[in-house]
């Protein structure tokens, strides 16, 4: 990994995001790195897929510009490995060898684009822009759900139970009856869980539960 090509360009769209360029050919690698850098992105280059895997940057914010034909571990192999490990960094493939079956396979697996060498600037920078946006969207979505999970982690078992009844539309009295506790206690649990989950209304709570995939409780059989 070479970090000297990384710049902090405040005007660029990827202030923290980095373009990871992986190509075994030194000429292509240097040229592409310089172009991406000149466009204002931070670039880190690798001479092989293994080097990238060894760097531990699999989950870093950014995108990958990946040569598809490389000795030993090809670009496609790397894509497959990352997918299997549930990493979702967007990938732009580049190749010196027009190969339609391969491009189809790559695109099916969610690649942003498949560009032939020598790569045109607008195509490449467009693809990078698109990839970084996608990464940011995915990343913020992932952050949101992670934060939600964090909040849900704070709930006690009883609070969970109370919540599942609340989102199912039960009244406090009904919940108390279902759980065999007093209505006052239900109110306390309810206030606490609303507080922990930082929601102010039942509607908000229902939305949150839906996002987090928490099922609503069903009334016990009469």
């Amino acid at each position: 990994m070479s970090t000297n090509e990384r710049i902090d360009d405040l005007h660029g769209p990827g202030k923290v995001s980095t373009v990871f360029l992986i190509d075994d050919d030194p000429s292509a690698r240097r040229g592409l790195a310089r172009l991406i850098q000149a466009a204002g992105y931070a670039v880190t280059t690798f001479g092989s897929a293994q080097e990238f895997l060894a760097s531990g940057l699999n989950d870093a914010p950014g995108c990958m510009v990946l040569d598809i034909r490389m000795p030993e571990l090809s670009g496609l192999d790397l894509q497959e490995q990352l997918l299997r490990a549930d990493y979702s960094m967007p990938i732009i493939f580049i190749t010196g060898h027009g190969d339609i079956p391969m491009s189809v396979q790559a695109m099916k697996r969610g690649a942003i684009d498949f560009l032939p060498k020598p790569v045109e600037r607008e195509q490449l920078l467009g693809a990078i822009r698109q990839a970084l946006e996608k990464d940011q969207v995915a990343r913020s979505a992932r952050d949101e759900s992670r934060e939600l999970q964090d909040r849900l982690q704070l709930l006690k078992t009883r609070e969970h139970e109370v919540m599942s009844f609340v989102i199912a539309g039960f009244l406090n009295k009904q919940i108390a009856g279902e759980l065999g506790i007093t209505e006052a206690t239900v109110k306390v649990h309810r206030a606490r869980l609303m507080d922990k989950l930082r929601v102010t209304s039942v509607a908000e709570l229902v939305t949150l539960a839906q996002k987090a995939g928490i099922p609503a409780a069903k009334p016990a059989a009469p």
Partner: protein
Amino acid sequence: MTGAMCLTLAGVHLLVWLRARDSWLNLLFSCSALTVAIIAGLELLLMHSRSTTQLGTVQRWMHVPFWVLVVSLVWFLRLYLGFGRTWLAWTVCGARTIALILNFAFHPNLNFREITSLRQMPLWGEMVSVPIGITNPWTLVGQSCSFLFLIYVVDAATTAWRHGDHRRALMMGGVMSIGIIVAAGQAALLVWGIVPMPYFLSLVFLTMVLVMSYELSQDLLRAAQLAGQLQTSEAEFRSLFELSAVGAAQAHPDTGRLTRVNNRFCEITGYSANELLAKTYWDLTHPEDVAMDAVRIQTVKERQAETWESEKRYIRKDGSVVWVSVNGTMIRDKKGLPYCMLATILDITRRRQAEAAAAEQRRELAHVNRVSTMGELAASLAHELKQPLTGILSNAQAGELLLQHTPPDTGELQGVLKDVISDTRRASEIIDQMRNFLRKRDTPRQPVIFNVIVEEVLRILRSEAVIRDIRLSTELEPSLPQVMGDPIQLQQVLLNVIANAQQAMARANSSARQLTIRTAGNGGTRVVVTVDDSGPGLEPGTLERVFQPFFTTRPEGIGMGLAICMSIIEAHCGSISAENRPEGGLRIRIELPATGNSTSRVQNLGGQT
């Protein structure tokens, strides 16, 4: 009568000897015949002696011609048969000499101490004198000399017989032995007074001389016959020389001046015979071939070789060049000194042209192979070219962006230009290599480090390996000796071999495709290059056939690649072989002689044109 006959024979052979001074046999025969004539005359005197004193004196003097006769006969036999113990010959001569000395020491002679009387006996109607007297015991010396002579003759004759010369051994040995026995016997009977009779030793010796003469004339006849044969064979040789469909020429061994040429030689060179006889061998030879030819002739002159052969060029009268194959030999005189050079000359211009045409075809084929290999590698080459092109385009486009910055980053712009320059060079090198590879002409032989060949071929094939998902590794000996060769042809060989291996592995569809190229210098005299693949290898029966033309295991292949490799490697005095590796896959092994090694004589694949 005996005397006359002997004198005639002696005269004839003396003449022969005078004409040919080294024919000692004739001289010895002459002496023998002469002495027999003298002995005959003395015997006649003996028979007509009127007193005992006269008889004693004649008998004494008879020992002188007798001595000459014995010595002549001894050496005649030695020379004639070529066998006979030399020491025994000297002993006989010595004994005879002692007898001669004793003869003159005694009175009246060696045979008698005293001749008491003369007896008159009738012989062929005439009365002849026969000596009666007291025998001299020293006469035994003479008789033992005769005995020694007999032993010498028998020994010489049996040796000659054993060596296969039956007729001469029998004739000469027989007549001499019988002659000695009869002569010595008669002398003994007479001297010891057992049977009184006149001497007729000359008759015995005459028989001997006649047989000797007959034998010698046989030799003369044979010589005449040989001379006749020689004449015939000379005529045969001349017509063979003159009429031969092959050019023939004789030349002086030192100056090379032509001394004899035939018609065909005139045709080959375009000169007339008279014009040629005023020229030397070297005048005809192409200047570039003179040195080579001179060396070959010198080795024959110095007897390091019997004959010489060379393929060289003559310049014809009209200035055109004719290729000839010359087979020459040095003819020597009796003393072994070079007498003349004799050579046959064959016009091989057509063969040379055919060879040149074949070489041209081989070259064409090799070229077609290179073109088709390049065709098959087009995708790989495009891939390889696109790398520096990507570098150039991206750098240039980066440059455009950098110029929009204020202020432009000049350091980065310098980097852009530097990279553009080096990438352009790289692209240009790839194109140059392709162009060289596709060129039709041969490249001159030059010292080549095979590691460089490997690297250049990998430049073309690296992308191919990546595309085919083949792991390529090299183990190159750093201090590899050089080989003498055509770099493009050697690249072609390696490219064919590696391309074959890659195709074999691609068809095998194995998961671990591994190709290893190794170079090693075997003891500094050979360079060994191996290419190992992890493909399916070959059926044992097909291993020997892989280098044959049109052998292929690929449906789309024409099977010329490895055959061309073999012809190229053989033209480099090397060898190429295929074997299945024990761990699976095929190994192609190329061996080439290293330069500096005396065996690294390199032929030109194309031959001379």
